[in-house]
């Protein structure tokens, strides 16, 4: 039966000719053998996949993501990874919204039933014992009938229908606690304004109370004629706008700003009645009762230039974010202008034209229709991998930092190979005094441990260099300090190769010495170079990360995985901002690990004897 089957098989199935191992070796080129050994090695495959993904992430990623190196937004510092800043809860759909305010990473809606709904992401660090969480709405607030609220960068203040004040969230300057004098006087609160470091309230007496840290505002003196006549307030970084009972306005605060100096005369002399004001940090937009708009302030982000299309329209609602103004006109259209780094100008297309109210705060924007329903939200959705201490998006910085780190590592490895070949080749070939001199050179470079001399050189040579030049300096330093090992290996291989017959043959043919070295000896070190270059690439990436970490590598604001971790030397960052050090560090590990895995596999594949070790 068996023989029958085999006969059958032989007849119909064309069998591959069986060859023994020796024949196989003879057929395959060494390159093929190495490739096959690599493909069979699971670690090599995992390493290769990891490395290619890191490479694609960094290089293709940096082509796709726009990057503005010097961009800063300190307001948004240390925000944890989240993309839900604008994801308002579904439960709001069956309620009527009266007002929406936002902090840097959260928004709060006041509904007609006097309740608050918070969404977005927590922006405060939560310490033991002290609750400063935005999402922990105090019990008394939940029970009260809230009528108005405001949000600072990281705190919320609100008042109920009986004029009681409540506040919670970040309170470094007691922004959330009513001052004792006001608590004692029992004066009811009617209006609120909240900024990063301070809170202002308007009492029923028409008097203004401000507390917290108001240093930026300089002197805050309410003009005599405005005393007791204030009916509404709005606050910017350095100035405040007051609406008086005759619907004229006064600006107080820092005197030198355009905000203070360019107030249109019509708004102060009583010729128009102001209905509403919106204030960014340096600009003011005012709407009078006829729907006409007045705009003044700093020219930053072209915020003081109203869009052409808007001029003829009649505005019904206005609001201001941190660097933007938003206006809803009588046709229900929405206009936004100002900065666009966080997609502030990307108004959703399907808003409809029933917009009655627009709410903007910091970088979040909401449009609400006449029924009090949110019809659209745009602006800063959040940071996928959090933000750093300057409020920069970690995701884009890791992508572009990867490009820098991988490039710096690669260039320094190329420098290493070039020097190692230039030193190792003649050293092994000539021996004698050439060998001696070159090897002493290697001794000198090896004598001082890497980090001390690298730090010293980086400082001595780099203190007057620009950022870009310093990056090249780092590549040079890593390259010039780490070629010795490879040079010694090359020398050892050349030493044994040069004694072989083919070199004797080459010599007797009268080939020039340089020709023998380059054409006949150099190819023999190729395997060695490949393996060691791979391993050296991993260690160069680690060296760059280490140097940048202690501040002697790639300099801010140019990102590199190493210098993104510099901040982690502060215990604050280790404690509260895990994303700022774990994520970049994981990329360093992923890159180094994958390259080391490939290098190890390569070594085994090229030198099967080594795998027995």
């Amino acid at each position, binding site marked *: 039966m068996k023989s029958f089957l085999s006969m059958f098989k032989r007849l119909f199935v064309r069998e591959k000719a069986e060859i023994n191992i020796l024949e196989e070796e003879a057929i395959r080129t060494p390159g093929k053998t190495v490739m096959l050994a690599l493909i069979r090695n699971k670690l090599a495959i995992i390493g290769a996949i990891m490395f290619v993904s890191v490479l694609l992430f960094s290089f293709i990623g940096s082509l796709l993501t726009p990057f503005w190196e010097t961009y800063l937004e300190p307001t948004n510092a240390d925000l944890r990874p989240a993309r839900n800043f604008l994801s308002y809860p579904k439960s709001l759909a069956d309620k009527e919204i009266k007002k929406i305010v936002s902090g840097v990473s959260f928004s709060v809606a006041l509904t007609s039933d006097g309740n608050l709904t918070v969404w977005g992401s927590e922006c405060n660090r939560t310490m033991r014992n002290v609750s400063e969480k935005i999402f922990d709405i105090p019990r008394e607030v939940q029970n009260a009938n809230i009528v108005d609220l405001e949000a600072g960068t990281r705190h919320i203040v609100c008042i109920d229908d009986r004029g009681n004040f409540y506040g919670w969230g970040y309170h470094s300057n007691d922004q959330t606690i009513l001052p004792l004098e006001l608590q004692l006087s029992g004066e009811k609160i009617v209006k609120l304004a909240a900024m990063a470091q301070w809170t202002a309230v308007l009492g029923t007496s028409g008097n203004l109370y401000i507390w917290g840290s108001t240093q930026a505002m300089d002197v805050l003196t309410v003009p005599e004629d405005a005393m007791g006549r204030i009916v509404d307030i709005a606050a910017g970084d350095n100035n405040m706008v007051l609406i008086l009972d005759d619907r004229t306005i006064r600006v107080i605060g820092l005197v030198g700003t355009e905000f203070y100096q360019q107030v249109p005369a019509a708004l102060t002399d009583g010729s128009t009645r102001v209905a509403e004001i919106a204030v960014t940090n340096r600009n003011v937009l005012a709407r009078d009762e006829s729907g006409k708009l007045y705009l003044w302030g700093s020219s930053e982000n072209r915020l003081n230039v109203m869009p052409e299309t808007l001029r003829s329209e009649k505005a019904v609602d206005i609001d201001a974010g941190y660097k933007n103004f938003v206006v809803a006109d009588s046709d229900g259209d929405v206009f936004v202008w100002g900065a666009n780094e966080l997609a502030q100008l990307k108004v959703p297309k399907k808003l409809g034209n029933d917009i009655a109210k627009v709410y903007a705060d910091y970088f979040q924007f909401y449009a609400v229709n006449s029924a009090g329903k949110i019809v659209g939200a745009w602006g800063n959705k959040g940071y996928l991998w959090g933000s750093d201490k300057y409020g920069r998006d970690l995701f884009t910085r890791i992508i572009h930092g990867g490009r820098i780190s991988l490039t710096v590592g690669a260039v320094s490895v190329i420098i290493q190979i070039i020097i190692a070949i230039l030193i190792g080749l003649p050293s092994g070939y000539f021996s004698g005094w050439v060998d001696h001199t070159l090897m002493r050179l290697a001794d000198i470079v090896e*004598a001082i441990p890497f980090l001390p001399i690298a730090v010293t050189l980086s400082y*001595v040579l780099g203190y007057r260099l620009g950022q870009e030049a310093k990056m090249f300096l780092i590549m040079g330093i890593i390259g010039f300090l780490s070629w010795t090992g490879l040079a010694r290996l090359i020398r050892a291989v050349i030493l044994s190769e040069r004694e072989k017959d083919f070199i004797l043959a080459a010599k007797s043919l009268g080939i020039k010495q340089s020709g023998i070295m380059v054409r006949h000896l150099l190819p023999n070190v190729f395997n060695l170079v490949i393996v060691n270059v791979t391993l050296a690439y991993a260690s160069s990436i680690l060296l760059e990360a280490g140097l940048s970490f202690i501040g002697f590598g790639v300099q801010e604001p140019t990102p590199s995985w190493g210098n993104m971790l510099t901040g982690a030397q502060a215990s604050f960052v280790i404690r509260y901002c895990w994303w700022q050090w774990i994520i970049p560090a994981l990329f360093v590990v992923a890159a*180094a690990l994958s390259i080391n895995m490939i290098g190890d596999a390569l070594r085994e594949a090229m030198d099967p004897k080594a795998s027995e070790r």
Partner: protein
Amino acid sequence: MLRYIAKRLLILVPVVIAISIILFGIIKLMPGDPVRAMLPTTLRGEQYQAAYAVMSARLGMDKPVPVQYLRWMHNLVIKGDLGYSSANNRPVVDVIREPLVNTIRLNIFVNIFYLLIALPVGIKMATKRGSLFDSGWQVFSIATYSIPSFFLALSLIFIFGVIMGVLPLGGMPNTVLFSGFGLMFQWARYLTLPIITLTIIGLASAIRYVRNAMIDALSQDYIRTARSKGLSEKVVIYSHAFRNALIPVSTIIVWTLFSLLMGSTITESVFQYNGIGKLLLTAVNTRDTMLIVSMNMIFAVVNVSAMLIADVIYGLVDPRIKLK
């Protein structure tokens, strides 16, 4: 043997001289004029010129550069004068003393631990090649090879200092508040994380080194002979193979001894440990020229002597090496 040592020394002298010239070049390249820094800022015009001339003569700055170099070397070698630390306003020797003691204290434990782990693990990996034990430690070795030391340090701080809160985030024990056993306990608390970090980092390469040395020894003919004589595996491994594996391993033991004096810049600064490595960073940040240069010089001399001694020991323990 003596001739060999003498020859090695003779080779190393030009290396040390070359390093000293490079370091002197670094002093000259340092930003800032040392003479000007020594003068009071109130001096003006001619008065300043005069004072400048006097001061530069006193510092020897008016002489040509080669003469300055010889003077510096004379002070360094003959008088043992490392110079004056400008940021600390004390002689460099005094500034270095305490951090050096701290670094040695840290490294003693690190070296003991990593030798205690690397030797048995490396041997066992070699004898059980291809086993789970072997590949497990291989993976450990390649993984720790790829982890930046600061990330390891930060993670340990995060786990033991922040989440569990059992160990300090970094710093030095308070020698005023504690004494006796209390102080020793404090040292233990502050040293634990740096020791773990540095031990793990050292292990990665040490394990591979011991393993390879042992495999080399095990593949020798005399091992086959020993086995064929019917000796027990224990005797073969420990008295035949291990003794021979010790020859290359002796090099790492020498290095280990010398590395006691070498601070690890990054780990020490992450843990805010007042060691020699952190001192170097501080020196660079405060532009303390003489301190930077002296420390580099010390590192170089230590390193070069380690190279020499390792070579000599290698020659001593391995009679096969022909001392040419």
